[in-house]
């Protein structure tokens, strides 16, 4: 019973989580100082923390963040326009949907990001390679969630529209699309996160662009503490994006 009460408390679980994190960081620091772990493989956490300043001032991490961010936003804009449009098209033309929905689902399972050498040949070593990979890799969830949202419009809402003798296009714009928006947003959020993951990954792989390239560069310079700090920075950024979009999604979802 006591453990149950502790689990329900608002303070104790975060404290345990954060405490263990801090303890393991401390343990690493001690083990590295004692030479149990070589500091040429894992730099001491204190050194990593120190190099944060360096990567912000010397490596222009903020400009790189803007570069990556604008790539992600371009991909997201393309996803919203193209992905949602394809979803609407497939929903409206039933035969097309029945023919291709399983294909779209299969593409969601395919390792699309592995096509990056192909995109390199087509678009060159330019931001467009990176943007297009993010866009294509994130397309399937956006399409699938758009179809799911439109198909899930409650019968009664459509009947209300029909009783007002709405035209098909009014029915779509005034009833089906608004009611599908929360689900479509789930798809867009998934798409945005997929795009972010793939964009940073491809930046790292082709050594071009923003944050991903920074990690590659620091690693090639054998700047270990800097590499670890840059990785921490990227993780921080993706966690913030994830948490932020989660907030928006919760705010959009109607309370039941």
């Amino acid at each position: 019973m006591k453990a149950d009460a502790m689990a329900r408390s608002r303070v104790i679980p975060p404290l345990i989580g954060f405490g263990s994190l801090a303890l393991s960081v401390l343990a690493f620091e001690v083990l590295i100082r004692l030479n149990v772990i070589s500091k040429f493989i894992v730099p001491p956490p204190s050194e990593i923390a120190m190099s944060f300043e360096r990567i912000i001032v010397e490596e222009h991490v903020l400009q790189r963040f803007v570069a990556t961010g604008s790539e992600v936003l371009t991909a997201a804009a393309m996803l919203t326009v193209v992905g949602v449009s394809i979803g609407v098209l497939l929903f409206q033309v039933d035969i097309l949907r029945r023919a291709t929905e399983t294909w779209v689902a299969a593409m969601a399972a395919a390792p699309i990001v592995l096509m990056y050498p192909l995109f390199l040949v087509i678009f060159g070593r330019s931001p467009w390679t990176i943007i297009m990979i993010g866009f294509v890799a994130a397309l399937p969830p956006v399409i699938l969630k758009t179809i799911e949202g439109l198909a899930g419009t409650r019968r009664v809402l459509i009947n209300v529209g029909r009783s007002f003798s709405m035209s098909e296009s009014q029915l779509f714009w005034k009833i089906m699309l608004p009611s599908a928006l929360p689900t479509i947003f789930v798809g867009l959020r998934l798409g945005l996160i997929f795009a972010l993951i793939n964009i940073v990954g491809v930046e790292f792989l082709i050594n071009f662009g923003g944050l991903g390239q920074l990690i590659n560069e620091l690693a090639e310079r054998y700047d270990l503490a800097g590499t670890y700090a840059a990785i921490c920075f990227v993780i921080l950024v993706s966690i913030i994006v994830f948490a932020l979009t989660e907030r928006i999604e919760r705010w959009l979802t109607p309370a039941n």
Partner: protein
Amino acid sequence: MAHAGQLTAARTPRPALADPVTMVRIAIIVGVLAFWEVLSRSGWLYRDVVPSLVAISKAVGELLIDKDYYWNLGWTGFEVAVALGIGGVGGLLAGLILGSNKLLGKSFEPYLYYLGPTPKIIFFPVMIMWFGIGPGSKIALGTISCFFPIALSTAAGMRQIKPVLISVGRTYRANAWQMMTKIYIPAMRHPIINGIRLGLGVAIIGTLLAETKLSNKGIGFLIINAYSTFDMPRMYALLIVLFVLSIGVNALVGRFGGLDKIKRS
């Protein structure tokens, strides 16, 4: 006459071959292939960016009889399998612990939840430092990729078990091990299989991406090698075979785990 034919065709059930969905599918495939071939012969794009279908099919054929390809496929398969083994068992254990203990779950699950959707490939330089430039670092990257989805869906699955099943186990005074093997795991096989399916997908991506970055064997290496020698038909062939394999394996895991029957039950 054509008009009348359309009307009757709409009313009477058609034979399987003329199923409209199949017809549309065939039409789309034929259309895309025709467009591709026109594009490749038109010369609008740089030569070889869109190789002709003949060249691609020839490359697929050559690939499938190439001994070297199977040797590399074996390495990649081995790396993915080991990664899925380590990451899967680790994820399963972590999920079981976090799912069964409320306090630990609330303390540590947020970390997994927020670390899950971060790009894993950026850990590759660190993995090279820890495990060397051989298959070890690729396995490590596949392992951290697949750990998160498996742990998260196991923990979520554990909390969705109907309380009545747990009560039945308790009534029979099952001990912890029996509860685990007789109640928990059978009751949550669907979320577990789903987690494994997701994990397999990201393990394949993680391993292959790492191979394209730095390696001397594996499918990822073959892809990046085809890129650097500008052998476009071979690159298309490798990608096509890889996509077919990974979609196939994914579908197989889903079917084997009975995921296709979930909606009916």
